[in-house]
């Protein structure tokens, strides 16, 4: 399929100038950077704690939240954060991380997800069908991000990362070995709740950027790639953030020069990276006893 690269030259400096020429692009890059750092860090813990399904549920709930906020005339960000916060509280009552969910629990989650999406569709219909709105709620937009949104995002991300820094060590302990952590007096229940709220915050912020359906591209895939490469927490976290950043910047840049949406590029880049790392690691592991860290 031929990809038209409008205005792309061989001179990287002029390309960069072109990228930062318009304020919407600068704001998109700023917002993308903030979201990528937060999603990379929190996503790493999510993958470690095997709470991918919880993240999926939260991201689905972001859609009716945003659509409902649009309907009653509140700012969309309010809808994202409100819905994800409530859902995180509800999930903390139901889900038991790290355990195989019994069949009717997954049926419950499936039903709730479909109901949430249906509710979002109802809200959009009642809003008398701005179809472009629907598409951007589901699949994200990067042209529409305003300077105030970037500022809100920055504060949210700073608060979330500060909180993560405070609870990081005990959270790591509780995630890796819950039973021992509980015996050592770590409040695992409170930590699980706190982390789900953080996850809700990250999902809500990411959804503004990537849309409700594509949150996973930034939250799961870079973290999963990082955990393929190294099992050590420090380098793993850093790698996850770096990968999320690289994928976001590249995705935004390519989307600027191509007619296709940013969501497609970000998901494809992160998925391609994930597959490439898996294949490379598979080859390395089969060949010899080289440690995983050597590949990074």
């Amino acid at each position, binding site marked *: 399929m031929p990809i038209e690269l409008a205005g792309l030259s061989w001179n990287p400096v002029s390309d960069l100038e072109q990228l930062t020429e318009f304020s919407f692009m600068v704001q998109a890059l700023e917002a993308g950077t903030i979201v990528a750092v937060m999603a990379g860090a929190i996503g790493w813990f999510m*993958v470690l704690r*095997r709470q*991918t*399904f919880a*993240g*999926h549920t939260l991201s689905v709930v972001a859609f009716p939240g945003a659509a409902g906020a649009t309907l009653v005339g509140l700012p969309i960000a309010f809808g994202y954060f409100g819905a994800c916060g409530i859902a995180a509280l509800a999930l903390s009552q139901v889900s*038991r991380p790290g355990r*195989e969910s*019994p*069949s*009717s*629990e*997954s*049926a*419950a*989650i*499936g*039903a*709730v*997800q*479909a*109901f949430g*999406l*249906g*509710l979002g*569709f*109802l809200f959009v*219909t*009642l809003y008398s069908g701005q*179809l*472009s709105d*629907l*598409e951007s709620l*589901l*699949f*994200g937009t990067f042209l529409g991000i305003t300077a105030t949104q970037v500022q809100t995002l920055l504060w949210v991300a700073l608060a979330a990362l500060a909180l993560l820094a405070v609870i990081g060590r005990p959270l790591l302990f509780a995630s890796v070995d819950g039973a021992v952590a509980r015996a050592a007096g770590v409040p695992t229940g409170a930590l699980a709740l706190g982390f789900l709220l953080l996850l809700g915050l990250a999902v809500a912020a990411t959804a503004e950027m990537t*849309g409700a*359906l*594509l*949150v*996973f*591209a930034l939250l*799961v*895939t870079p973290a*999963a790639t990082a955990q393929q490469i190294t099992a050590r927490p420090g380098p793993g976290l850093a790698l996850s953030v770096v990968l999320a950043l690289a994928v976001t910047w590249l995705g935004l840049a390519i989307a600027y020069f191509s*007619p*296709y*949406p940013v*969501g*497609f*590029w*970000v*998901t*494809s880049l*992160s*998925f391609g990276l*994930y597959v490439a790392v898996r294949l490379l690691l598979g080859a390395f592991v089969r060949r010899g006893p080289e440690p995983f860290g050597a590949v990074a």
Partner: protein
Amino acid sequence: MFAHEFMRNAYLAGSFVALACGLVGYFVVLRSQVFAGDALSHVAFTGALAAAAAGIDIKLGLFVATIAVAMGMGLLGDRARPDDVVIGSVFAWVLGLGALFLSIFTNGSSGENGTAAVRVLFGSILGLSVADARLAAVIAVLAALALLAIARPLLFGSLDPDVARSLGLPLRAVGIGFLVLLAVVAAEATQAVGALLLLGLLAAPGGAARLLTDNPWRGLALSAALALTSMWGGLALSYEVASLPPSFAVIAIATAFFALAALRAWLRSPPLTGPDGGPGRSVFRIETCCATKAGTDQRV
């Protein structure tokens, strides 16, 4: 209500699609393959939009994409059981591809195409023609009959795979056949309630039936009946209340059934303390004893 031809078509197609969804959905829940249903609904969306972008019939894209992915999952399922991180990564990419096809499709020409995308995502049961409705009904009936034909070995294999395998049942073939049936039903249901909501029509009636009865045959019938009632009620409700989209009404009723079943199970279960000191009075307590058998052979 039945004076309108579009309502008659909707009821004709909807009834049989709901019947098939209820029957297949019961096994989906029993075999803990809700995740597979989720995957197929994402694939259905991307497949339909790919067909639309390429300018061929949406139905063709739907069936080809879902059946191909179901075969792939079935073939990989026995050897490697991908964990939720892998599934999540693949989902994100499949949806990203869907976004790509959506943009190609809507950029081609505007207006009319935007509504087509919404139809794929959230269904268009009121827009079916007579021929469409008849075709949907025939395919749904065939899928339901095929499921009933393999129901016995499928049930055995779902509940006690080890014994079933030692008796020489072709579990692998039955499992793949079931996934293909699930794919056909998912592609059918996409036209009725849309790619994003079909998971509700699969999971909610099946989940409710699992909570209400332990007898598999009664559960199967109950699941189909609940799906059918949801479809009929949802269609009638959206006819009476014009602003209510039919797909939402159907899913809302199905979810309400599930919530009521869960409430009943919760009220009936005696309060006890969980192993981790948490609240033991759980909706899912009665499940765990029966689900462990099926859960050990979870193939997604």
